[in-house]
């Protein structure tokens, strides 16, 4: 028989052949389908839980009052030091000019007393280890340093340009921010990230630190000039 004819015959015969599977074969298929269905649905509860968690925290984020920088549902708790985030929103507690004058007359830093601070409930849930920092004493301290530095420079030279003063103030601002966030950027942890985010949200925060430094500097200079006159 020629190969082609033979192969044709083989193909026809095998194409028409039907073999009956064993009686329990469908049950075996069904049981495997059940287990694969279970595997497939196994991820859903986790996916739903994750989505709900994301929604929950997004919701909390959205209800946060962007004007005050506080969360809805604030609670009052005792804190040793005030929050850096809230700092700019509090009423001016100390006259920077008087503090600076006092400091210039070597009366030391004006350290604020512990007071009741409003700490958001959700913020506490997220991170209870955040230590808020009051910027005012730090600013004043840094201001003194800048004033002293300016005076030294003025003694050495006849005049000092505004740009040089601004540069000194900017350096002071950077040092202040580094003190607020002493861990630096080389390590990544949740506290750093949270602090960073808080600062980024209040976009004017850094600018305001700079402004405070500058205003204080001008006032101190004016006061010193008036005294000398």
């Amino acid at each position: 028989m020629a190969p082609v004819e033979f192969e044709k015959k083989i193909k026809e015969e095998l194409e028409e052949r039907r073999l009956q599977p064993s009686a329990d074969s469908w049950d075996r298929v069904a049981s495997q389908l059940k287990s694969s269905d279970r595997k497939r649905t196994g991820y859903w509860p986790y996916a739903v839980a994750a989505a709900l968690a994301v929604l929950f925290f997004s919701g909390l984020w959205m209800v946060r009052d962007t004007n005050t920088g506080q969360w809805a549902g604030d609670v009052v708790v005792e804190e040793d030091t005030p929050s850096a985030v809230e700092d700019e929103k509090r009423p001016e507690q100390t006259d920077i000019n008087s503090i600076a004058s006092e400091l210039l007359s070597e009366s030391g830093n004006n350290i604020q007393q512990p007071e009741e601070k409003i700490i958001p409930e959700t913020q506490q849930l997220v991170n209870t280890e955040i230590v808020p920092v009051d910027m005012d004493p730090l600013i004043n301290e840094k201001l003194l340093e800048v004033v002293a530095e300016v005076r030294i420079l003025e003694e050495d030279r006849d005049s000092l340009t505004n740009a040089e003063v601004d540069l000194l103030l900017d350096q002071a601002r950077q040092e202040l921010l580094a003190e607020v966030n002493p861990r630096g950027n080389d390590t990544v942890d949740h506290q750093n990230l949270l602090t960073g985010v808080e600062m980024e949200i209040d976009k004017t925060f850094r600018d305001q630190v700079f402004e405070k430094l500058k205003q204080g500097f001008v006032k101190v200079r004016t006061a010193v000039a008036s005294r000398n006159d």
Partner: protein
Amino acid sequence: MNRLKIISFYKNEKVLIKRALRGNREAQRIIYETHAPKMLSVCRQYISDGHFAEDVMINGFVKVFGYLDTFRFEGSFEGWIRRIMVREAISFLRKKQFVVFDEDALQGREEAKIRIGSNYDAEQIQALIDELPEGYKMVFILHAIEGYKHQEIAEMLGITESTSKSQLFKARKLLQKKLTEKMTIGYGTR
């Protein structure tokens, strides 16, 4: 009338597939029972042991239902299932390391104790095919029965096209030889 029947069957099959796709177990069972006898025959062509062939067919159907969403209703559903079965059978044989593409594969094969005449049936043909070494058998079935080209066979089996051609040539030669021997024995003309 026949045309109406074909359209009706096609629609029914499409509905069944869509139901099966949604996880309807009854629809899956109907699809299984419709195609299982033929698919078991396909698997049996490659795998000499009937139990193993059934295991392969069952795994194949689990894949059919698992990948049903990839069927685009563009070709024959039976053909799509068949391709899955063929690949499953090849995968099984390769995992079990039955496939050897060399001359030594010819040694030690037992010859089927059958009498074969000019009116040989499917079982007799299957017995002849079973006698072939796995490498020869796979290439022969893929080419002669399934109609795959040598390039496709080479890709499926991870061999070169020339190996596929060579295996087919040897398979044909061996089958012819065996057939001649059986027919001679059957008719007792020697």
